[in-house]
């Protein structure tokens, strides 16, 4: 093709520019899908401990994205000493393998949240989200009072989980898929991954744990806090040798 043809035709110019600049990306990213070591194996007694989110956590994650929390918070602890001392063990690839899209982020106006799960109580999170300055003086995080007021919409939860299933998250619809999840994640977890039970499971988790301090309603706060409380808690690093995960690199 002649140079002139490309230069004088915007369509060609855009298409071919995209081809050229994607070569770098493809060469760097595509091989990672085929390497054994990219995503670490995290198994304790033959059971995978990194699991897909429960229906309630899925909704919490949706709200996390809707509110743009990722604009100020990363979820990616890099393997540096200073980060490990403040936030804990560096993040594993395996820990975001069920995240679509992942929430690694690239901006830390606030602290990293990759291991914030179980660090604070539900009560603290509720108070902090409604009015950050009531617990952290001088915080510049915005107030999110509507999380406590808005009833959580969950009628479409099964459809949301089906969508995630299409991109590879192992939620189950059939008995065979369910049985497979029991083998992979254990029964307690498999129950929560069953799309047929999604709505009942969501309500049950919200009411039992009462994240927002109000047992009568399922609010967006229930979902948000459920999600925050599970972040970074799926890998028990005490169960692995020191430096075990560096053998995957």
């Amino acid at each position, binding site marked *: 093709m002649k140079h*002139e043809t490309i230069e004088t035709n915007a369509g060609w110019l855009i298409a071919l520019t995209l081809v050229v600049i994607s070569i770098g990306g493809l060469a760097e990213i595509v091989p990672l899908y085929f390497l054994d070591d990219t995503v670490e194996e995290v198994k304790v007694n033959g059971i995978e401990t990194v699991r897909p989110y429960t229906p309630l956590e899925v909704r919490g994650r949706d709200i996390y994205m809707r509110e743009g929390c990722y604009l100020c918070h990363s979820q990616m602890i890099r393997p540096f000493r200073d980060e490990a001392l403040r936030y804990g063990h560096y993040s594993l690839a395996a820990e975001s393998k069920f995240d679509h899209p992942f929430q690694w982020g690239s901006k830390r106006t606030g602290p990293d949240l990759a291991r914030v799960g179980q*660090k*604070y109580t539900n009560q*603290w999170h509720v108070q902090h989200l409604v009015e950050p300055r009531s617990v952290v003086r001088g915080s510049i995080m915005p107030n999110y009072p509507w999380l406590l007021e808005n009833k959580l919409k969950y009628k479409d939860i099964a459809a949301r989980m089906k969508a995630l299933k299409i991109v590879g998250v192992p939620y189950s619809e059939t008995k065979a898929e369910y049985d497979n999840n029991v083998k992979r994640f254990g029964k307690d977890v498999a129950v929560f991954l069953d799309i047929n039970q999604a709505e009942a499971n969501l309500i049950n988790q919200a009411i039992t744990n009462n994240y927002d301090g109000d047992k009568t309603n399922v609010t967006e706060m229930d979902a948000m806090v459920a999600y925050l409380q599970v972040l970074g808690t799926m890998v028990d690093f005490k169960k692995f040798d020191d430096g075990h995960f560096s053998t995957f690199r």
Partner: protein
Amino acid sequence: MAPTDSNKSDSNKSQTKKPAVQTTGHAWDGDIQEFNNPLPNWWVWAFYLTIVFAIVYWIFFPAWPIGRDYTKGVMNDIEYTTADGKQVKTHWNTRALFEKNMREAEIEQQKYLDQLASASIEEIANDEVKSNFAYSMAKVLYADNCAACHQPGGAGVVGAYPNLADDAWLWGGSFEKIKTSIAAGRNGIMPAFSAKLTATQIDDVAEYVLSLSKHKTDVGKTARGKEIFNGTSGGCYFCHTKAGSGMESMGAANLTDSVWTLADVPAGDNLQAKKEAVKAIIQKGVNRKMPAWDERLTETQIKILAFYVHQLGGGK
């Protein structure tokens, strides 16, 4: 616009007069020409250099995928000893580099940490080197993990997070008890009485509670409140003791002092307002949790924090 062969318009004269620079031969919109200057030499060489750099990099660092594996690079070994004494030697990678970094710093700190791990609280307090080290470490740990609830300096939030800097303790202010509070967490529970007691009874018992801390209260109400507090209808004494001085094993607050952790009594400027604050707690009950830290922090870190909290002002 399609390019025309060359341009002959007048407005372009100033350009065409310039020293002869090669053009691409295109002209746009009739008069815009495209120069075809050669790239500067430094740029061309820098470009070649990046190619040479890439090849050198491929040799010395992990680079090329081969099937399910990849080249690890040569002469780039990282060696370190893990905490449990294992020798590790591996090709260059950021995680091994991190492990090595952490170990080197740990070894550097270990001599202090070892001293702290075996020292008693008095030994730490009386030894300048030890206490300086403990303080500087504790301050950072406290800011990262505790300040969000207990506030900078341990001031706490009335109604939510207890003050750690005063000498009133729910669960005990000895070094060991503070350490247990931090390591295992605490859960302060008091049942709600809104259904168990009538409005008058709650009013009376609140009146009695305020009398315990030397507030001037109504004699009749106080007497009736005392009955409820120490009797089966209220059963408050079960956790707060008959004297109202609290019980450490239950985390039950001392009601006889002027320190209030939940009911914001000092904020009320008359007896009625103070009583409302107390009544609110009795009606709703309490369920406050302090997270456990033994999963997140090491034993020595918890010890250092306990030392710090103990020294904040109120340790016993």
